[in-house]
């Protein structure tokens, strides 16, 4: 015990509540502060076991005073004060509790300052009695007042709980203790008298529990006691009437008015929240409805799927039966004779170019039948005629780790490529930036000699002049002679290098090691040809970024370095389109190959000369490498109409190259359906436009997708205000929109698929406002892609206006 600490007396008044009293005393015994004495005043209540109390209090000394009859709270308090010896005095009623640091926190405030009265905060704890278990339990808690000392307020309101206070004994005695004429509020009266002379210090910390008993336990809650409270209040006010000055009334009232205003605001706020909740509820029920509809639909689809599976099983059984029959047939003598004839005929057919039209579907079907059986024919035919969208991970290639930048640097330093490299660039009006590109190419590191070969088809700008600053090898051809394959072959013929690199006039190498990275794996004998990735220019629009990202990075798996050759799969022709394109991916925007190898193959397709070269090389057992870790900067911002034509031409060209059949639907019908879908799209965009500014970009695309699903089936006339691409608008203006249900449904489904990918991509951007025009353009361009694809893939005839000018 620190002898420096002054003694603190805590006066506990009790009457007939021994059980509660124990809790109160325990909370005093638990005080961290010493020395403390308790003056326990039994105000005419039942007998108490003083020894038990002493044991309970431990090192806290007990002064027990028993009054013969009940004399009231004020007198009991005064008896306590008279019997106390402590320098400081506090009060604790038998039903309340102090926290262990209560005294410890308040004493220094009296001890080390001039304050005579200090107080802390208390927590109001609502208590109820569980009659079954005979236990008390808490029903709630709240901080009861935490207000700094304000005498103006104290005049009207008893806001300082008595057990929170600690007084100097001298000050209490000077004030003459408690006024015994009060049965209730004797504490308030005391504070009103003290507060007039002294400012109280307020410690903003909760150090006590003020227990509030449920109505059946608390006398002061009863109706008769309400009257008592009211009378007591009136008596206090009467006694201290002179302190209630007009200024104080005004002061108190303005606080009240302020509180009322705050309450009003709160009410308005609550009302708004309730309204919001109500709206949300409505929204939720709408969503629930939608969800149940979707469930019903999925149930329906599931049953349909089941029916199809049953059907497929039946077909399979039938096939087995037929196959058995064929096998029986094959074993007959007549079949064997026929077989001989067929072999002869096949040999004749086989001498034709396998990719020429002479190699008919029938001949190829026969080959499959001979080598792989009837089931394979059926499987392949199915694949050929039903356009199945396979989006699976390409597993026909070997991923290789890219060379680290340090490894490349040390290779360049220690083992540069001594050979001459010929870079072939077809040009036409390449613009001023071409100077930059040529310098960047000629400054590539680690290459023995770089020979530039420019094949220009009729530039009328500075292209030729710029080129002359870098090379003598400029071949000029008339514009009409330009051909993706032949023009590049022409350049290659002039090349004298051991290695050939093909690129384009607006592709800028990334870094100074692009050439070395491209050719090093070839020089090392790892692969026969290498292509590198493209990355968008910094001013590329969203659509061009997205289309490269979705097609080359996601669809073809271009975000890793992969080697591919035909030992990884049995038969190239068996692969699906995605796998074929991914396997045979060479890109004439950035393509490296040994000249001797190129001379064997050369470019020879009218369309996609690079893919065609890749396919031929792969079929011959060459290894191709695609580098995601090496790149050129290359992208174009193009108008929507370009994509309508491009998609049409691409699909038509690809169909030819991969031997797919043309569609069977009249072109006019597809045009009408496209026009219908276009009108619907314009309508959707106009409807959404008003308030999409702060949306997330993917939210806008998703909204378009949603509308595509729910757009009404009535014909929408043209002429909505938002027209993004004049050319597209002009093109479809001439076509009557007609709701050909099946085509429209399919086109919309296709658009939903593609837009889903766009939505994923634009999720990287913050808000629509920042990229509005670019984003809406992208949506229209997606439509153009889909429409172009449909017009080429499904139409029985060619669509004239889309054929020319790409």
């Amino acid at each position: 015990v620190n002898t420096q600490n002054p003694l603190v007396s805590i006066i506990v008044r009790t009457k007939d509540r021994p059980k509660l009293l124990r809790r109160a005393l325990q909370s005093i015994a638990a005080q961290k502060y010493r020395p403390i004495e308790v003056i326990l005043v039994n105000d005419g209540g039942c007998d108490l076991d003083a020894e038990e109390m002493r044991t309970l209090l431990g090192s806290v000394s007990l002064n027990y005073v028993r009054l013969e009859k009940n004399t009231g709270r004020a007198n009991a308090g005064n008896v306590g004060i008279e019997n106390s010896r402590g320098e400081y005095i506090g009060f604790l009623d038998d039903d309340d509790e102090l926290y262990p640091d209560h005294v410890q926190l308040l004493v220094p405030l009296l001890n080390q300052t001039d304050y005579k009265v200090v107080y802390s905060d208390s927590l109001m704890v609502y208590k109820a009695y569980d009659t079954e278990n005979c236990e008390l339990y808490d029903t709630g808690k709240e901080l009861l007042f935490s207000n700094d000392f304000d005498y103006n307020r104290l005049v009207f309101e008893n806001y300082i709980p008595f057990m929170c206070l600690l007084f100097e004994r001298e000050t209490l005695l000077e004030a003459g203790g408690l006024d015994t004429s009060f049965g209730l509020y004797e504490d308030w009266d005391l504070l009103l008298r003290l507060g007039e002379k002294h400012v109280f210090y307020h410690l903003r910390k909760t150090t006590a529990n003020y227990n509030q008993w449920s109505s059946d336990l608390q006398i002061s809650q009863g109706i008769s006691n309400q009257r008592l409270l009211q009378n007591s209040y009136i008596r206090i006010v009467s006694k201290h009437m002179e302190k209630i000055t007009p200024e104080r009334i005004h002061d108190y009232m303005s606080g009240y008015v302020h509180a009322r205003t705050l309450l009003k605001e709160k009410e308005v706020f609550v009302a708004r929240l309730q309204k919001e909740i109500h709206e949300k509820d409505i929204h939720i029920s709408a969503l629930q409805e939608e969800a149940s509809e979707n469930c019903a639909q999925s149930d329906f689809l599931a049953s349909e799927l089941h029916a199809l599976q049953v059907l497929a099983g039946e077909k399979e059984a039938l096939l087995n039966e037929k196959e058995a029959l064929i096998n029986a047939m094959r074993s007959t003598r007549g079949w064997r004779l026929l077989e001989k004839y067929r072999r002869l005929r096949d040999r004749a057919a086989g001498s034709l170019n396998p990719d020429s039209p002479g190699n008919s579907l029938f001949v190829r079907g026969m080959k499959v039948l001979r080598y792989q059986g009837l089931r394979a024919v059926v499987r392949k035919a199915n694949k050929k005629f039903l356009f199945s969208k396979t989006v699976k991970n390409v597993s026909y290639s070997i991923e290789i780790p890219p060379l680290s930048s340090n490894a490349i640097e040390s290779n360049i330093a220690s083992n540069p490529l001594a050979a001459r490299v010929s870079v072939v660039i077809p040009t036409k009006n390449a613009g001023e930036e071409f100077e930059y590109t040529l310098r960047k190419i000629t400054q590539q590191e680690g290459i023995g000699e770089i020979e530039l070969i420019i094949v220009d088809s009729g530039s009328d700008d500075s292209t030729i002049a710029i080129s002359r600053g870098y090379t003598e090898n400029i071949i000029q051809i008339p514009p009409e002679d330009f051909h993706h394959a032949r023009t590049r072959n022409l350049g290659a013929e002039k090349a004298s290098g051991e290695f050939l690199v093909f690129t384009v006039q607006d592709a800028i190498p990334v870094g100074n090691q692009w050439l070395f990275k491209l050719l090093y794996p070839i020089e090392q004998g790892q692969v026969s040809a290498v292509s590198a990735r493209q990355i968008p220019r910094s001013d590329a629009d969203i659509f061009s970024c997205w289309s490269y990202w979705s097609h080359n990075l996601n669809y073809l798996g271009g975000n890793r370095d992969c080697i591919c050759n035909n030992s990884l799969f049995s038969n190239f022709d068996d692969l699906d389109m995605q796998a074929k394109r991914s396997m045979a991916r060479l890109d004439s925007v950035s393509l490296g190959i040994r000249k001797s190898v190129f001379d064997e193959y050369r470019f020879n397709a009218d369309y996609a000369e690079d893919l065609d070269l890749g396919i031929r090389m792969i079929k011959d057992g060459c290894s191709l490498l695609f580098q995601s870790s090496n790149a050129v900067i290359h992208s174009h911002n193009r108008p929507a109409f370009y994509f309508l034509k491009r998609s049409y031409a691409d699909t038509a060209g690809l169909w030819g190259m991969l031997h797919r059949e043309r569609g069977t639907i009249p072109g006019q019908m597809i045009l009408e359906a496209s026009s219908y879908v276009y009108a619907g799209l314009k309508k959707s965009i106009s409807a959404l436009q008003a308030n999409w500014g702060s949306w997330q970009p993917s939210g806008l695309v998703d909204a378009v997708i949603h509308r595509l699903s729910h757009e009404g089936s009535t014909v929408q006339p043209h002429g909505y205000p938002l027209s993004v691409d004049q050319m597209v608008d002009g093109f479809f203006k001439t076509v009557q929109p007609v709701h050909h249900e099946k085509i429209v449904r399919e086109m919309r489904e296709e658009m939903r698929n593609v837009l889903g990918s766009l939505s994923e991509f634009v999720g990287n951007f913050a808000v629509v406002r920042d990229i509005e025009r670019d984003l809406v353009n992208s949506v229209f361009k997606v439509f153009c892609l889909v429409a172009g694809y449909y017009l080429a893939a499904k139409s029985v005839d060619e669509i004239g206006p889309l054929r020319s000018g790409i």
Partner: protein
Amino acid sequence: VRILIGVHQFFPRHYTGTERYVLNLAKQLQRMGHYVKVLTYAFREEGDFRSSTASSLVIREYSYEGVPVIALRHTKQPDDLVFVFDFMDMDIYKEAKNIFEKEKFDIYHCAHPLRIASSIKAARDAGVKVVFMVTDYFMMCPMGIMLRSDNSLCDTQDNGRNCLTYCFTGVAKDRMQRRNADARTLLACCDRLLSPSRFLIGLFNHTGFIPAERFYLSRHGFDYRTAKKPVSGRSQELITFGYIGTVQYHKGVHVMIEGFRQVRDPNIRLQIWGGCFHEVDYQKSVLKISGGDPRIEFKGSYNFNDVGKILETIDVVIVPSIWYENAPLTITTSLAYGIPVITSDIGGMSEAVRDGLNGMTFKVGDSRDLAEKITAIVGNRDLIATFRKNIQYPPRIEEEAFHTELTYRELVPVT
């Protein structure tokens, strides 16, 4: 890949080189299909801040040119308001950790640690890979530029002793030591350290702060959208030298003027572009040194977007800084436009300009040596054409972003 880029301040209020680096990188990475967000610090309460649930900070989320940004701000001013000494801040740490955990970033790319340094530790603790682009000397130099208050070059802090002797005389020793300890802790949290110049790598290595082998070189990209056309066709008689930058002591403008005046040729000009910032006395002294030489023109402050126009009239750019410039934008810009540079033979300056190849270097602070270089050019005009031919264009922002992406790929493999 999901990337958070941290920077001490950001657009629209702040727009110096580092902010531009972050914006260019973020936009290019978005275009390459990545999710990028910027984490920054706001000094002013502008816009809609909301209070945080994770810390006592306030937060504002906004977007700039399509890039989502999250700005943090203290409600109570921290002791070290400019954050020169205190790297660690519990509130920033808690908030950043919450962001990393909630938004599931794969990469934290710190572009400058000022004010937000604790986010590096938070990233590490949240299991996020950390890439730190060390753009200046701030991690070892509270001044940031390794130039002492007396304008002498500093090549090591000598365990803090030089800082307390030359620059921060009033600062307690243990505070400096804590700064160094915190800096080392933060650097240990980084999975990749990038530097825009070899010089910076060398200096950190020399001071013992970061061994050279921890660094990867990643040169800053230039935005060529503003530099459409290499300039050509100038006056045959006059040779115009140019200075583009602020007129401040550590930029060495006085050295340049002294050097220029030693060359008596009447057919040369010197254009000085740039305001004096707040060094008015220095500007006065510079005017005095120029002594009314009619060949010297003071052009005053300029707009960064007009640099292309300014460069059209200049044959050779002079960058005479007397501190260790790291990756000076003026040199990068001049080279991007194909204009040769004469510059001091220290720091990142002599790294970008090779003496006699694509320009010339002179002994730092030595006006006589500079005069000799100018004389050489005046005596042989063809040098300018030779230098121009040998200029390697600085990398583009697309290239920088691509190489940064490769760094990310090494840390976060494709799934």
